[in-house]
């Protein structure tokens, strides 16, 4: 018996809503579990890839160096890489910061917000926290992406349809009703 195909997921600069939409396939998740093995994902406890994956699902765009590293790792490890949702596809709401210099965003949050107690006037700058990118990048500007599922988030049925199509080798033509651009 050939081993079950593996699926990995990652959340980059998004809100986790796309992962929630994956969970919104509800009881079908138990059916999915009989057909695939889950690899690295924030909803299980595998912190690193365990093996090569048939499908990688990425939510969110890239807003810091850590997002880029993780996305590159997904590209290397996954046969088919899916950009799931608006943040992965076009940066989404986090990309609203792209028209504003990054320093202004940081100063607003850490120096100017009412109620802020910052006697030394510091911005978070510790070596323990990652470099922010100058702007938020959609995933396909960083690595090659094979499939796009739009929506904020995409409906659970769209995710289910794409996954089952990929897993059964059918073409994953999107269903019109599943195409959401909100």
């Amino acid at each position, binding site marked *: 018996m050939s081993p079950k195909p593996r699926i990995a997921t990652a*959340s980059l600069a*998004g*809100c*986790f*809503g*796309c*992962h*929630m*939409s994956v*969970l*919104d396939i509800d*009881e079908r*998740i*138990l059916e999915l579990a009989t057909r695939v093995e*889950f690899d690295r994902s*924030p*909803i*299980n*406890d*595998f*912190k*690193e890839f365990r093996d090569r994956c048939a499908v990688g699902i990425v939510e969110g765009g890239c*807003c*810091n*160096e*850590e997002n880029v*590293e993780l996305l590159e790792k997904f590209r290397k490890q996954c046969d088919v890489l899916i950009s799931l949702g608006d943040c992965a596809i076009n940066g989404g709401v*986090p990309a*609203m*910061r792209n*028209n504003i*210099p*990054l*320093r202004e*965003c*940081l100063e*607003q*949050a*850490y120096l100017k*917000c*009412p*109620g*802020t*107690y*910052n006697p030394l006037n510091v*911005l*978070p*700058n*510790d*070596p*323990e*926290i*990652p*470099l*922010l*990118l*100058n*702007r938020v990048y959609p995933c396909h500007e960083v690595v090659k992406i094979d499939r796009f599922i739009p929506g904020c*988030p995409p409906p*659970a049925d769209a995710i289910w349809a794409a996954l089952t199509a990929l897993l059964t080798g059918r073409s994953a033509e999107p269903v019109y009703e599943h195409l959401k651009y909100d």
Partner: protein
Amino acid sequence: MTADGGKGKRYTILPVTRVEGHGKVTIHMDDSGVVDHARLHIVEFRGFERFILGRPFWEVPVIVQRLCGICPVSHHLAAAKAMDRIVGGERLTPTAEKVRRLMHYGQIFQSHALHFFHLASPDFLFGTDGTAASAFGAPPEKRNILAVAAKFPDLAVQGVMMRKYGQEIIRRTAGKKIHGTGAVPGGVNKNLSLAERDDLLKDADRMLAWAREAVGIARDFTMEHLDELAPFGSFDSNHLSLVRESDGALDLYEGVLRAVDKDRNMILVDVNPQRYLDVLMEEVRPWSYMKFPFLKELGPEYGWYRVGPLARLNTASFIDTEEANAAHGEFRELHKDRANNVTMCYHWARMIELLHAIEKIRELLLDPDLQGRELLASGPRREEAVAVVEAPRGTLFHHYRVNRNDEVTMCNLIVSTTNNNEPMNRAVTKVAKDHFSGRKEISGKLLNCIEVAIRAYDPCLSCATHAVGEMPLDVELVDASGEVMAKMVRDAGAAGEG
């Protein structure tokens, strides 16, 4: 140290780091190998407070919920409540208020079920040999909902179906399950049809029964293992939440701010949320993108507090639904007149709120006001508004100023998990001090203990980062001179080792 604005380069040279994952823990030890302190670093920054400026105010309830896909309804409602005040319509019509409350309790129900069954249950269900350090030692293959499903299929299905039910309530009231548009400044954009109501009602009794069982699971686990759990990541603290203005009852949608100290003495007496800046401040520390709120009067050192289910059950005088109130009484019995300061009791408290949520949902569904046609209120226009709700993870503050051109000119958000920043750091420090001191190597089981302590808070790191429940963690042992003695990146291979 500056953003260079691009010019073909991808990176700005702002904060420097080399972190894998979204949350990071560092543990600092003195010369003799004793843990001095530990830190949970929040490594994400998105800048909502800046890029929301200049947007028309009516967009805000739809935009800001993108802070979080796990509790979008909380941000949606907090922003909508603020914008109610901007349009002078904060006295909602009964229909609007009840539709919003239904949406909110649906959110509480799905989020608490998600956390307990999908994320935290593997910590409880795979056994303990009686010591805190090994209590949470299930191998990583088992620490997920699918492993729970393999061993406890009925329970896993219940968890999945409960979350589904909460999501369905959100869909009926907000238009979609994630990032809905149901609440608008001054009210809601739809009521609930009788057909929708009947559809939701038919499963309510089953959900109530399952919620009752969930309280039992959480209570029994806590009581059976109380000796191990009581000290685990625990410490005395203040607690803060909204309570109902008239009588101090638990109220997750509307109320006044109350805080109690470790002995349940009131230290913030039912303050109108519009005055939150008079009583709260947020400290910036350079090693985290998440700020550290504290009660102004007590200062940063003593004024920090916990929020969320544990805090709410400590601050609220009672619960206004029958079964949850009885469960609350049982919960309070444990510490009599003091506050419950046991970190792991968050889970039990969370399930009591789950039960409360489904009782509220049933009560609301049977209320004919849901089918009313008056959906919007309005009044004299204002330029500034604060709104506070109790999100699943705790007190959530939204504060806006809007100019005459309808543009947002100021936005300040204190998300629930931010309120728990100091306590989560204390919990990490406590676990590290109790279990790591004198060690040069950290086993996978010990690492999981750190996560278990953080997970008790159900941190919604989407609001600050993006991981949920199971955060990838780097743990470093740093000696007094700052030299890294040992470093362990949590991965699948390492995590299972005892």
